[in-house]
């Protein structure tokens, strides 16, 4: 398998290009996805290869074109709908939750909605409260949807290809701050199943369960911890639904201590679910309560010194992990 270094953005683009070559029913639409290739330039070159019938710029109508995605998916296409910032998902909730998620069930299994909603999450870009949210918990809460949170270029390509081939609506979240992150990515066709967690680093003393942007933070913290003689295991669920509980629980049972990290709000969020699953499934194995680390429960502030304290960092995770290992 030839491997090259690609950025996260390139890996996403490659997945899209490969799937579009493979299957003519795959198409992309969203705001400024064609010539502009999105503000993040993730889609650059696709309209040139696949034409304006398959890569379509839309008006600023998130609800409308998401709905069009649902209908197109029901009738023979595999649309990849682009929502520029995850914050604008607020406008798509009816189409995603009342329509996309339920069409298969409500029709007794007759209609299918094989669409992907690609969007972003993450703060620290100095974009303030309406451009910094990580709203994947909402979708994880809704039966009928699948939710994917890649954390490396490799995962991004493999998971996106799977998402496009999936027969269900999949919401695919990319961390905006990660687009330039580099990693090894095979040049050929490969897919990663949804619902399979990945142990990003092995360790014995403590488990860091981390999603999306937090995976890199966890890996950084693990390096710091190593210097203190603490061996941290980093588990990346990769999808919040379906959720690979077994891999998470196996790790926690081995280490007996766990911090769950997710860039969404911790309260009523993904970190809450992970904590609940672990507290239940590893109840007799835990030496200390599960610790949650997520975005501080505030609208994300613009001012850099304020914004910086709202999100877990290598330092804060390192400290929390060290303290936990010392205590128990």
């Amino acid at each position, binding site marked *: 398998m030839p491997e090259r270094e690609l950025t996260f953005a390139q890996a996403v683009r490659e997945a899209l290009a490969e799937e579009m070559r493979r299957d003519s029913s795959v198409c992309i639409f969203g705001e400024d996805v064609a010539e502009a290739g999105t503000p993040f330039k993730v889609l650059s070159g696709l309209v040139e290869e696949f034409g304006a019938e398959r890569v379509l710029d839309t*008006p600023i109508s998130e609800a409308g074109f998401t709905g069009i*995605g649902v209908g197109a998916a*029901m009738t023979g296409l595999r649309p990849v709908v682009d929502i520029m910032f995850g914050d604008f998902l607020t406008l798509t909730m009816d189409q995603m939750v009342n*329509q996309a998620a339920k069409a298969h069930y409500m029709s*007794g299994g007759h209609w299918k909605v094989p669409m992907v909603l690609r969007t972003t999450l993450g703060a620290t870009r100095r974009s303030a409260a309406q451009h910094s949210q990580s709203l994947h918990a909402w979708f994880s809460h809704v039966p009928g949807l699948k939710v994917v949170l890649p954390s490396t270029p490799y995962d991004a390509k493999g998971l996106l290809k799977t998402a496009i081939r999936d027969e269900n609506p999949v919401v695919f979240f990319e961390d905006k701050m990660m687009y330039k992150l580099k990693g090894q990515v095979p040049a050929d066709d490969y897919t990663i199943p949804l619902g399979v967690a990945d142990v990003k680093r092995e360790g014995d003393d403590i488990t860091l369960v981390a999603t999306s942007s937090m995976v890199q933070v966890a890996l950084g913290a693990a390096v710091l911890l190593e210097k203190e003689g603490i061996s941290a295991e980093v588990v990346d669920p990769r999808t919040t639904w379906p959720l690979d509980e077994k891999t998470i629980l196996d790790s926690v049972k081995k280490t007996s201590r766990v911090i769950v990290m997710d860039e969404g709000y911790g309260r009523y969020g993904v970190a809450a679910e992970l904590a609940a699953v672990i507290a239940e499934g590893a109840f007799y194995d835990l030496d200390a309560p599960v610790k949650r680390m997520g975005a501080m429960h505030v609208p994300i502030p613009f001012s850099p010194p304020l914004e910086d304290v709202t999100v877990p960092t290598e330092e804060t995770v390192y400290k929390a992990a060290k303290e936990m290992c010392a205590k128990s």
Partner: protein
Amino acid sequence: MSTVTAKPEASREAASEKDKWLRAYRQMVRIRLFEEQVNELYTRALMPGLAHLYSGEEAVAVGICEALRIDDYITSTHRGHGHCLAKGASPDRMFAELLGKEAGYCRGKGGSMHIADPATGNLGANAIVGGSVGIATGAAFASKRLGNGRVAVCFFGEGALGQGSLYEVMNLAQLWKLPVIYVCENNLYNEYTHYSETTAGTILGRAAAFGIETAAADGQDVRAVNEVATRLVKRARAGEGPAFLQADTYRYSGHHVGDINREYYRSKTEEQRWKTDRDPIKLQSNWLIEQRYADAAALEQITMEARAEMEAAVKFAVTAPYPSVDQVDEDIYA
């Protein structure tokens, strides 16, 4: 499906005028009698939940669906039995769905507000007002992209004019020249509020602003509706883009079967006037007789056949079994 209820095919053009308008009549009668049974089921406490009856509005669904191919798409509403039947669904499986039975179109999971049927291109009724405007437009997008010549019809009540997503998708449909027809069934009421209290300006102006072809039709006159629909469908199929049709009509019953005391929002006189003067079935029956396409006895025969069909369908549904409880978590994911 018996031949009398068979969905007309493209070859319909060749069929005689007489047959065409008799079939339209029959379809309207079937819907009316279907709804009578629904009300009966509700009154006899045999139906779980509620249902929204289409009686009075039959000419709209029939006029339009008679202009469609079986593989054309429709999306429908909470008041969807008429669209569903007009597009070709079978009453037995519809009743079964209304009663939550496994034999229903959605295996009992959808109920009255969610009947869907791929075989007749019915993408589903929708309990969110305006909830299917995107779906219909998306189906038109897929048709265009796949080049399969299908047209999508999006039925909604005038209440859906309040939903912003309608304007979003009309804009896109016009930009992309999609074969979709928005059909606004203006029955004068959004639940318990007269539409004049919720609708500023004009209805057709809402679509015209986007450069969309607009048309109006008397929604009690099945031939008038059909004529306009035929033109708009032809345009759409020829790649000339979307259209918007306003059909003025009236619902005879309450907003739903439980809405019995309606005088605080509309008068009995008003209801009576529509029923007496503007009933789509009466109007069509008078015309058929006038044209000598049928006599009273022939029309009575159609009614009797339809009644028998509906009674048998109800019977089927009432005695059909519920889904087994373990089906509850089937069909969540494909």
